[in-house]
């Protein structure tokens, strides 16, 4: 995780059988990066959802199972991170933004 959980804005982490949770944090130079735009892209590159990383760099998606790309936009560029999710499971991803 990326420091203190962002409990102000998100419900407790639960995953039901019909969904997969993809969550994690965005870091730069080992520090959480707030305010980055994390886009969840499907296998064909299609956009599915977007969130902004919290004050602690945290992000969370409730997705379907499958192979996903996290495209993270920040001031100065973007970076892609691959992740595979399965229904009923939580998968943690770490997005490292170039310093």
């Amino acid at each position: 995780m990326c420091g203190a959980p962002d409990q102000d804005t998100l419900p407790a982490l639960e995953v039901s059988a019909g969904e997969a949770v993809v969550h994690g944090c965005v870091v730069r130079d080992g520090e959480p990066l707030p305010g980055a735009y994390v886009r969840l892209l499907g296998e064909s590159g299609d956009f599915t959802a977007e969130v902004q990383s919290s004050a602690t760099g945290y992000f969370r998606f409730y997705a379907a199972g499958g192979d996903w790309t996290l495209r993270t936009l920040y001031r100065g560029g973007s970076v892609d991170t691959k992740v595979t999710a399965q229904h009923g499971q939580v998968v943690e991803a770490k997005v490292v933004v170039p310093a």
Partner: protein
Amino acid sequence: MSRADVLVDADWAEAHLDDPEIVFVEVDEDVSAYDGGHIRNAVRLDWTKELQQPEARDLIDRDAFSALMSDKGISNDHAVVLYGGNNNWFAAYAYWQFKYYGHENVQLLDGGRKKWELDGRELVKDVPSRDKTDYQAKEADPSIRAFRDEVVTSIGQKNLVDVRSPDEFSGKIKAPAHLPQEQSQRAGHIPSAINIPWSKAAADDGTFRSDDELAKLYGDQGFDDSRSTIAYCRIGERSSHTWFVLHELLGKQDVKNYDGSWAEYGSLVGVPIQKDV
């Protein structure tokens, strides 16, 4: 109507922040985003508490819209520039509502909050003080809003454009992937609907694609220009984004936003639903 009439870019906006004839208005899904910093002189509209009725699931009525605008210091003559997070979903929803109540001069800031932030442009925490006005909303314009009965009778007759993600359209999930999976009773889509996700109309930075790219996008996906059109999503915001593209940018005729959208349709008793999974 041209793109320049309904859309402004960030450079133009930055040069007009102090123009007394213009009111910048921020509308976010996360209504607290404004508190963390907003475009200078922008006022906030809270879509959950101000643009919708507190009890019934409906838009605020004409009198309430007049009172809201008056309280915000927006007059009938002001040019309104709307922007927000989530690629302008909720700003587009507000834009559609401004048009619904007949506001003449309203535009979207291309790219919204995201592009503004990624550009590193100024955000401030000072809340502007504006004098109250005497706003008079016009009669609601039924030509841009669809209700459920019209949607049901439009199956196979009109372009029904489902702008949700492919997994929501197929019935694999019921809500966008940044939200917990709840809401409607059933998953799937309205029979005969075509799935053209709103996101295909925007670049990564949230700006709208060019008119040529947009025209090709809808043409390639089976959009029939000879038919009237109803756009829907889950609760009417993403479909406002597509309504803006079809009606305001591409100038297509008879395009309605179904703001009841899947949260309503997917809970109705006795209507047909198609599920692909």
